[in-house]
């Protein structure tokens, strides 16, 4: 036991007390938070007020248009856009740009301009002159007849690349013209708004027990969780393999084997590196929780009507249980590979099958989130190798009956025992075989022999 602890301590310190570990552990959340915080921060920087002139040849649009660009109206729209982007995140890039633009809005100042009885050329000349004197930033020309289909509204700007301003102006103008057209057809605006309101599409899920719950954001949480497990399993599996290959390459194995039981050595290594992985994961999860709640709180403050995905302590416990199961399954496989090969390059070639299994598990998650109660979801969430990634995702999406979770834990525990049994045998013999890679029949013989 003393020796097992000595091995564990060394392996843990070896992983944790390195620059690589410190950097990935603390920079990853920092980088992630930058991705969340920086855009919010940058977008919250208010641009300069845009001085805009409206050359309204029809004489009927300008008023409504200016009203739509008032600060109050813009704020109202920003809230709506924020809400929209949270409830319906899967949209095109273009749509996302537009939404962020709407959330910012911009500030406008109107410059008086009388376009009545002036020709188009005259208007352009006069306003262009103002722009070149820096008295004006942009202007809109509204044609006389707004009801025709081919009517063009022209917008001239000193900074045509400012998509935030452009979007605000386009939307406001669009609305103003629409309202005017409706008024022209004797339909009141209130009436129209009433008629064309979007339906409230509120996704709620019903658990097996018939309870009803809000379902918002669980897709994202499940996805992040699956990714985290995938990354950590991959990193630490490889770490185990390289640690074992190092001991084999440098011939330390013989000294180690004369001091402690191979089983103690292998298990000490697995648990030590596993605890290091857990340390990292715990730091990540904590920061993620803080960041997410920060994100949700600020979203709620801005008025968006959302609910936190329901993460109970029970779910967190399950998460760690399945992380440990996954870790021991994959780390043992990597330990097995490490004791068969002679150097890291060879190890890299053999490492493909476990990576394949992990990736399959990750892909299964997407199907499982869409339909957590399907037969497919049931099988992939209890099967060894996949369950450690899929089951936590399924639990977050929709807590399955307890017997299924218990079955998954049991099956994977049995798999771990089997793998450790095999790996410790291969380790015992393989670590003292220098010079050549072991073939599969040879390894099979080692397993049977001892």
């Amino acid at each position: 036991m003393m020796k097992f602890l000595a091995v564990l301590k060394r392996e843990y310190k070896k992983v944790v007390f390195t620059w690589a570990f410190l950097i990935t552990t603390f920079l990853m959340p920092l980088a992630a938070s930058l991705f969340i915080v920086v855009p919010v921060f940058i977008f919250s920087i208010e641009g300069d007020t845009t001085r805009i002139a409206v050359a309204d040849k029809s004489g009927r649009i300008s008023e409504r248009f200016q009203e739509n660009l008032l600060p109050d109206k813009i704020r109202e729209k920003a809230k709506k856009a924020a809400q929209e982007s949270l409830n319906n995140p899967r949209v095109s890039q273009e749509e996302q740009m537009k939404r962020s633009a709407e959330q910012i809005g911009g500030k406008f100042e109107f410059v008086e301009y009388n376009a009545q009885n002036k020709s188009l050329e005259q208007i352009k000349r006069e306003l262009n002159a103002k722009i070149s004197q820096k008295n004006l930033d942009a202007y809109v020309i509204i044609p006389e007849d707004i009801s025709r289909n081919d009517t063009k509204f022209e917008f001239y700007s000193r900074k045509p690349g400012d998509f935030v301003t452009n979007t605000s102006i386009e939307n406001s103008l669009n609305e103003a013209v629409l309202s005017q057209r409706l008024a022209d057809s004797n339909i009141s605006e209130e009436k129209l708004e009433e008629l064309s309101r979007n339906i409230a599409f509120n996704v709620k899920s019903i658990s097996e027990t018939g309870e009803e719950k809000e379902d918002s954001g669980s897709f994202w949480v499940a996805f992040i969780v699956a990714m985290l497990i995938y990354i950590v399993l991959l990193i630490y599996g490889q770490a185990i393999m390289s640690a074992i290959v190092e001991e084999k390459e440098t011939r330390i194995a013989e000294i180690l084997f004369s001091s402690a039981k191979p089983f103690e050595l292998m298990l000490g290594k697995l648990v030590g590196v596993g605890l290091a992985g857990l340390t990292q994961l715990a730091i990540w999860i904590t920061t993620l929780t803080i960041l997410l709640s920060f994100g949700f709180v600020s979203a709620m403050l801005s008025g968006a009507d959302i609910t936190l995905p329901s993460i109970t302590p029970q779910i967190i416990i399950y998460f760690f249980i399945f992380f440990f199961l996954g870790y021991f399954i994959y780390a043992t496989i990597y330990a097995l590979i490490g004791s068969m090969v002679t150097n890291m390059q060879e190890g890299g070639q053999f490492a493909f099958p476990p990576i394949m299994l992990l990736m399959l598990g990750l892909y299964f998650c997407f199907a499982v989130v869409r339909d957590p109660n399907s037969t497919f979801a049931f099988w992939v969430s209890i099967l060894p190798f996949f369950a450690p990634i899929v089951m936590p995702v399924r639990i977050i999406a929709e807590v399955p009956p307890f017997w299924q979770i218990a079955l998954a834990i049991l099956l994977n525990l049995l798999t771990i025992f089997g793998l450790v049994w095999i790996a410790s045998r291969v380790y015992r013999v393989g670590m003292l075989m220098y010079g050549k890679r072991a073939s599969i029949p040879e390894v099979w013989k080692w397993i049977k022999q001892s």
Partner: protein
Amino acid sequence: MINVYDVIVYNTFKIINMNDKDITLRVENVSKYFGDFTAVKDLSFKIRAGRVFGFLGPNGAGKTTTIRMIVGITIPDEGKVELFGEKITPEIRDRIGYLPEERGLYRKMKVHDQLRYFAALKGVSQKEADKRIDFWLDRMKLSEWKLKKTTDLSKGMSQKLQFIATMLHDPDLLILDEPFSGLDPVNVEFMKDVIAEIKSRDKTIIFSTHLMETAEKLCDDILLLNKSHKVLSGSLRQIKESYGKNVISLRCIGGEKVLNDKNLVSNIIEHSDEKEIFLADDADPQMLLRKLIESGAEITKFEMVEPSLNDIFIDNVKDK
């Protein structure tokens, strides 16, 4: 009433036990196979406490396999190994210090941490380990490297460090497999002094090598292994004396025919300007000298000598 017979039995057992304590290692009829390959066949020997035991043999003779069975890395297929009169247990193993031929260190670990780890694996407490680490680093003149990484050390220094790692738990049995490979002559002499010092503290040392000159200087007893079988064993003194009567150092021109006579000569080892002649079992030196003179050979040196361990080694291993 005390039964006289019981007393005798009791005393007899006491004597046997005392004898057992005197014997550090007992290997009995040990065999080890790897598939079709026989690594060690029916090997038996004993090592007495406080002796330096030379474990000799050419490469591939089965030395390392035997040592691995002694330190409990592998288990014999047949026969048994006893250490300090007991079967090998983890506690017993902690009394062995093993410096393998294939040895290494963690490249990125600091010298001090590394030694602490190896000591912990042998069950030494950290406080005790720190004391011994300081002592040995000082003894090996490596103190200034204590906080350096192992990658910064030269090959010779790494070797010394590995030696320290095998000494930290103050083992009663020290097994050194080719301990001088990779050391320069100055360090070889230095290490010999250290080993002599350890021996003077009544520790048993198994010294495995194929370098006969070093073995000859260090060992009290030897065992010669060839092709997985024991060829020769006993105290070095006795072995050499037994060869002393039938080895002749010869310098002569001609007489090849006589020397090739298998009834007279069992083996010839050529040196630069003279030959070491091993006589056949029923031949004697006088007979050889007479035959040489009769053949007309011009003899400039004919001397009965005690053979070197190297010659004995070659005589036993060659063509067999």
